[in-house]
């Protein structure tokens, strides 16, 4: 595929007077030293030429034999062919899940379910590097993150919910928790394995069986997970994985024999799914988009805040629903903070996801790169001031420079729309009231950040911000024990913690 023409257009040459005051990392424009390549070996992953669907415990081709190709977004080269499911295959997967729920998985005691989930967690730990490398190849995320965040958190998630499987009575005092039945689960491409774990672990712990549909650009770690299910001797049909386009996701969500729908993805699709299940008795949880405000007060520890801001928006290329994409800085420190940020941006290493030094990897797909490019162009057109460090991008693959906009108005598209890319919009405020008003001035409400040394102010801001997760003096932290999910149009229901179980049970009188 040809490389993106937009790339040269978005690379902005910054004039000397626009450069930040350096504190020693290279004049804000170029890293003054070279990093030797530190590639992670790919040979731990044995890619199959062709992957089937995982239905009833076996890998099967799609009914018509159709396939699609999953590519490595950092090289644009094909990785493998994957079965392209149709509605017929989805129906088959739902039947397999129903059968397992009635006859095998649904009949097991919590104690036995727990042991299977512990097994899965252990196998993920044992095969951690294989998963990390495959995840980075298929999604474009830096190996540093897949290795240290995605895969260990996924394993921990199974571990955490394993222990709940035989303790459900203690999670819902005075109630008996029964499984809902068959769960349809649709996940996005930004954290493929981790989102799989967030969906499957609590569902199985509560005694449900599942049909999981991974995103069409990142199916491979889910299909490798199918192998883990086989290794763990999980009863066939307990976990089913169907790969293919978005339409089969809608067919799955609205299938008459599905009791529960869990979706993570865009607010737009979330609304369609909500309409699709309207009037049915299906239980629904949605984890949707975000446009988080990250608020920095004048008494914040600035250097820590800079690290938190960078982690907040450039982690996983900014392809994070809870990314801190709107930086709200108190006016008195805005100049200093922006200088420090620009300087820090110059040390971010963009490139090969499999290189252990890489901070920002490849954008997940051509379509996503185009969306980011278009929104960044709108920021420039609407009058915001663009800043990008002068870093070299690889010749091939979908890459985008870490981007920072100053002079952003609340009405700008880059301050309102979820970009899902490494693009930070900086706004300023004078008083805490103004910060709260700007932070909440969005249809989203997934996450927020606040940076200040004053404890009482943290608690005040925490209680006034309409967001499901608030990070105080930190950002983008996740843990299986910690409930995650949105306010307002960022969705409803929680994943993680005791609260995550609630999405997969029906409560009855004792």
């Amino acid at each position, binding site marked *: 595929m040809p490389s993106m023409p937009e790339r040269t257009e978005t690379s902005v040459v910054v004039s000397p007077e626009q450069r930040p005051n350096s504190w020693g990392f290279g004049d804000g424009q170029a890293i003054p030293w070279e990093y030797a390549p530190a590639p992670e070996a790919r040979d731990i992953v044995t890619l199959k030429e062709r992957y089937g669907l995982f239905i009833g415990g076996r890998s099967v081709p799609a009914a018509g034999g159709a396939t699609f190709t999953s590519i490595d977004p950092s090289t644009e080269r094909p990785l493998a062919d994957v079965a392209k499911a149709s509605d017929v295959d989805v129906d088959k997967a739902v039947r397999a899940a129903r059968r397992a729920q009635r006859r095998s998985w649904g009949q097991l005691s919590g104690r036995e379910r727990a042991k299977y989930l512990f097994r899965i967690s252990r196998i993920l730990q044992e095969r951690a590097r294989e998963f990390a490398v495959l995840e980075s190849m298929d999604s474009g995320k830096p190996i540093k993150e897949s290795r240290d965040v995605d895969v260990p958190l996924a394993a921990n998630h199974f571990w955490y919910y394993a222990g709940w499987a035989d303790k459900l009575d203690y999670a819902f005092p005075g109630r008996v928790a029964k499984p809902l039945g068959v769960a349809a689960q649709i996940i996005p491409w930004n954290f493929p394995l981790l989102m799989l774990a967030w969906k499957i672990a609590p569902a199985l712990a509560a005694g449900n069986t599942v049909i999981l549909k991974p995103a069409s650009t990142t199916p491979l770690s889910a299909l490798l997970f199918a192998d883990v299910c086989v290794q763990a001797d999980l009863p066939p049909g307990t976990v089913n994985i169907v790969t293919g386009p978005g339409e089969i996701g809608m067919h799955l969500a609205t299938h008459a024999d599905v009791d529960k729908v869990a979706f993570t993805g865009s607010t737009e699709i979330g609304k369609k799914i*909500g309409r699709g299940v*309207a009037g049915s008795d299906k239980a629904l949880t949605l984890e949707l988009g975000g446009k988080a405000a990250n608020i920095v007060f004048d008494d914040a520890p600035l250097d820590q805040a800079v690290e938190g801001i960078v982690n907040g928006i450039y982690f996983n290329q900014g392809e994070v629903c809870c990314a801190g994409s709107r930086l709200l800085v108190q006016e008195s420190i805005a100049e200093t903070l922006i200088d420090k940020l620009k300087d820090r941006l110059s040390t971010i290493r963009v490139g090969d996801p499999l290189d252990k030094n890489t901070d920002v990897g490849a954008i997940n797909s051509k379509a996503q790169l185009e969306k980011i490019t278009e929104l960044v162009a709108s920021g420039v057109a609407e009058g915001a001031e663009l800043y990008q460090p002068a870093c070299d991008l690889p010749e091939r693959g979908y890459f985008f420079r870490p981007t920072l906009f100053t002079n952003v108005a609340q009405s700008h598209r880059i301050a309102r729309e979820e970009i899902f890319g490494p693009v930070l919009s900086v706004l300023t405020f004078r008083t805490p009231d103004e910060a709260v008003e700007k932070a909440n001035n969005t249809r989203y409400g997934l996450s927020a950040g606040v940076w200040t040394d004053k404890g009482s102010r943290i608690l005040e801001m925490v209680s006034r911000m309409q967001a*499901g997760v608030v990070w*105080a003096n930190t950002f983008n932290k996740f*843990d299986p024990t910690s409930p*995650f999910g949105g306010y307002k149009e960022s*969705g409803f229901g*929680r994943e993680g*913690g005791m*609260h995550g179980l609630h999405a997969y049970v029906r409560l009855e009188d004792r």
Partner: protein
Amino acid sequence: MAGTNGRNGRNGADSRIEVRKTYKLYIGGAFPRSESGRSYLVSTADGAPLANAVRSSRKDVRDAVRAAHGAFPGWSGKTAMNRGQVLYRVAELMEGRRDQFVSEVAAAEGLREARATEVVDRAIDRWVWYAGWADKITQILGSANPVAAPYFNFTIPEPTGIVGIVAPETSSLLGLVSRLAPPIVAGNTVVLLTSETRPLPAITLTEVLATSDVPGGVVNVLTGRKKELVPVLAAHEDVDGLDVWGVPDDLRVEVEQLAADDIKRLSRRPRGTADARFDWLDDRAAERPEWIAAFLEMKTVWHPIGV
């Protein structure tokens, strides 16, 4: 309403003409008529005319939502204990009007007096049960989370915001109280559409609310045609959650689709439950902390330890 005062019979020389009540709406703590000037005739369960109830309009729904919106910061900002005391006060004042509620429920639902008394008593007790939850639900639903890193991490429930309630059609008072108390004890403010065919006990309840310490706008009550009003409520973008218990079956798909357009939280009847057959006198079935949780948002907070 049919005269119950019978000192000397209807036509006696010193007979007294009863003062009848005009049933109005309850919006923002006031008792307006509909801006539309419309009404509809309400009858007893066996068909005798009872009174004219207000047939609210779309504009009334919008006014009620605005009132609920205005009341939200104050109500959600009260201490939990204070909210509990306010709801308990509703029970106190209902107790004082017990006989009135008994005769109204008996007329509306066609119940014998003993049964109607049981229903009213249970409605009063239900306020007491939910009032007690105000300062406990956070401890039941909240959590301190042992994350695997040096952070203090906790989760607390907060009210969702403005909740629309489509009240049960059959149980005009007990069912309504059972659906109304949970969202407001949580700190939400409410726009409630009463039973279409049995709206009168709900209006009498608003007279109790107005004279208890429930601030104006926390509960707003409309009567009228569900077909006309429910879609307006479901589509209103300032309504954050919707209790669809009393939505007629033929409206349910449309209403839930409208609610999906801005990701409203829905609270539905338990699977397989029919409104007309639900036993509101069964405390185990009708008193549920989950119904409070239906309109609570969980907020998780992280803070580093040691740096």
